[in-house]
């Protein structure tokens, strides 16, 4: 959920609650004020009426609320002494201009008693009252209008605020998403006066700076390690090659040189593979382009043709569909070449290599003298099913590292007496 919608959700719920509470309190308070007002008015009327009645020698009972809005009747002394000022809400038939016939309307009635020349009288005075249902109805409508108005203003204010205030953040986020360590030259930046955003930018810049330093150090280390190891290896191999050219060598000496040379070359391959592996893990290859795996596999099969012929291994390819992939071409070459090489070198004489290509999956299977390998170990560095093998034991580890880099899923299976490696490139 976007920040704007989330804010809106919380704000409207809280506004609803606040308004509901406020309108209840407001209603009760209003009612109280109205009652007080009417009661004061009734009190005043009572005083005026009693004063007026006292000027007459006798008080004629007036038993109906007429134009005077009061009625008087005589009562006994005991009753009069018990009677205090009583205010109460009651209903009376009244007829307004717009009423076709009298309706029950709420009124406030004060009942009291007074004494005049030894006689006791009960006096009831009424005053028309506000209708509570009308009040509630009107109040409810205003509250609803208020709520809608508030929500509308929240939405529009939110929109403006998000667009204005949060714009730097969204642009910053966008820059961050596109940022690639060691690739993007410009650091993500935002033009803002807001302290929190400034802090965020500072934190991100510091983090990127630190990462770049580490990345640079690692890159330099790889470069240095490569330099430090490759030059001695070059000297070793070239000296041996020059020595082997010498005419005076005996057969045994020549064979010894051959052995040392082979060992040195194993070292070279090991060093190259380790460097490649760390380069992949440091993501130093990301010259991605659109590639056709079909074309790549067919080219690579030509490269391996002579080796396959020599071992009398049949290479078959079944292309069910075109497999397109967006990746570094050097790495794509390594994946295909390592899988094919693996399938050829761990094969048996007269065996076969079967390659399958669908629009998502590349499968390379091979016959072998060995039975199923440990699927949990087959991609481990330096894992060798056959300890006599002079391979580096890094070929499949490199393939797996490349798959991880691009989010491909690689699995090993042993089925139909064949070792099978399957890469899902669009999972």
């Amino acid at each position, binding site marked *: 959920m976007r920040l704007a919608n989330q804010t809106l959700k919380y704000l409207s719920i809280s506004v609803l609650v606040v308004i509901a509470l406020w309108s209840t309190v407001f209603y009760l308070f209003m009612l109280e004020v109205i009652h007080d007002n009417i009661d004061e008015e009734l009190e005043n009327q009572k005083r005026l009426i009693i004063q007026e009645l006292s000027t007459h020698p006798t008080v004629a009972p007036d038993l109906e609320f007429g134009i005077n809005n009061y009625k008087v009747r005589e009562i006994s002394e005991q009753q009069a002494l018990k009677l205090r000022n009583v205010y109460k809400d009651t209903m009376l038939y009244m007829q307004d201009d717009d009423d076709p016939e009298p309706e029950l309307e709420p009124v406030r009635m004060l009942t009291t008693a007074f004494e005049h020349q030894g006689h006791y009288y009960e006096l009831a005075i009424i005053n028309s009252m506000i209708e509570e249902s009308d009040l509630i109805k009107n109040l409810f409508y205003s509250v609803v209008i208020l709520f809608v108005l508030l929500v509308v203003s929240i939405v529009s204010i939110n929109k403006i605020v998000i667009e204005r205030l949060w714009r730097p953040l969204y642009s910053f986020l966008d820059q961050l998403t596109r940022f690639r360590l060691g690739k993007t030259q410009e650091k993500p930046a935002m033009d803002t006066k807001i302290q929190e955003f400034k802090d965020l930018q500072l934190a991100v810049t510091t983090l990127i700076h630190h990462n770049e330093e580490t990345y640079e150090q690692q890159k330099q280390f790889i*470069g240095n390690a*490569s*330099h430090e190891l*490759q*030059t001695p*290896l*070059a*000297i*070793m*191999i*070239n*000296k041996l*090659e*020059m020595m*082997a*050219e010498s005419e005076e060598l005996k*057969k045994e000496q*020549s*064979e010894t*040189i*051959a*052995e040392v*040379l*082979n060992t040195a*070359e*194993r070292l*070279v*391959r090991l060093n*190259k593979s380790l*460097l490649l592996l760390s380069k992949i893990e440091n993501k130093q290859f990301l*010259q991605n382009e659109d590639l056709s795996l079909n074309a790549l596999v067919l080219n*690579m099969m030509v*490269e*391996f043709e*002579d*080796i396959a*012929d*020599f*071992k009398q291994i049949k290479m078959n390819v079944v292309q069910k569909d075109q497999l397109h992939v967006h990746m570094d071409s050097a790495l794509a070459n390594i994946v295909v*070449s*390592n899988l*094919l*090489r693996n399938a050829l*070198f761990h094969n048996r004489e007269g065996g076969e290599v079967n390659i399958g290509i669908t629009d998502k999956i590349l499968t390379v299977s091979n016959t072998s003298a060995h039975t199923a390998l440990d699927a949990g170990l087959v991609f481990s560095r330096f894992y060798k099913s056959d300890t006599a*093998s*002079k*391979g*580096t034991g890094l*070929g499949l580890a490199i393939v797996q590292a490349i798959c991880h880099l691009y989010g491909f899923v690689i699995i090993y299976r042993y089925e139909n007496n064949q070792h099978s490696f399957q890469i899902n490139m669009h999972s």
Partner: protein
Amino acid sequence: MKVLVIEDEEDLRGIVKASLIKEEYTVETASDYGAALEKVSLYDYDCILLDIMLPGGNGLQILDQLKSEGKSDNVIIISAKDSLDDKLKGLELGADDYLTKPFHIAELNARIKAVLRRKQRDGKNTLTMGNVVLDLNERCLFIAQELVPLNRKEFDMLNYFLLNKNRLVSKSALAEHVWGDHTDQADNLDFIYSQIKNLRKKFLASHADVDFEAVYGIGYKLVEK
């Protein structure tokens, strides 16, 4: 032919020099940035082998200097860094080739010959040894003026051997050059033997006066009979 070797490692400089003398080139060496810059500005060379990491400076700066004088096209960069950035920068500055350490002597020879041949520009683009003539433009082989059919790999192999006449070509150097860098397992280079056998059959059938000489366990030499 005059070749300059700019390399700070004394041992490597020595071997490369010895190998180039075998090819009957005049060889000069420089071991640091200053000496190298002095030599390239004073003399003209047919080919310059340039190490990038040098004491006192970066080899790419020397290349820059050579480029400004229009002399960078005969430079082969030799670097221990298999870094794409350096490679691109080097080739952009006009270097002819980029060779990553460690390399095989045979590969270095082949690369130098390619630079030198491009410099000659006498129109002829053939490699000759005895009565064997390999035409690089038409990609075909003549033995005693007779056309001998070759497949692509056989052509590449013979080309490599003719660039390394009378020199040892190790099996791994040959495999890397002809079959690409896909030959991880040293124990599986035996297939090269059958390829050599095929070529030898063609030599015999056409009465070529060259032949392969095996160097035990290491590789082969192409020699005149």
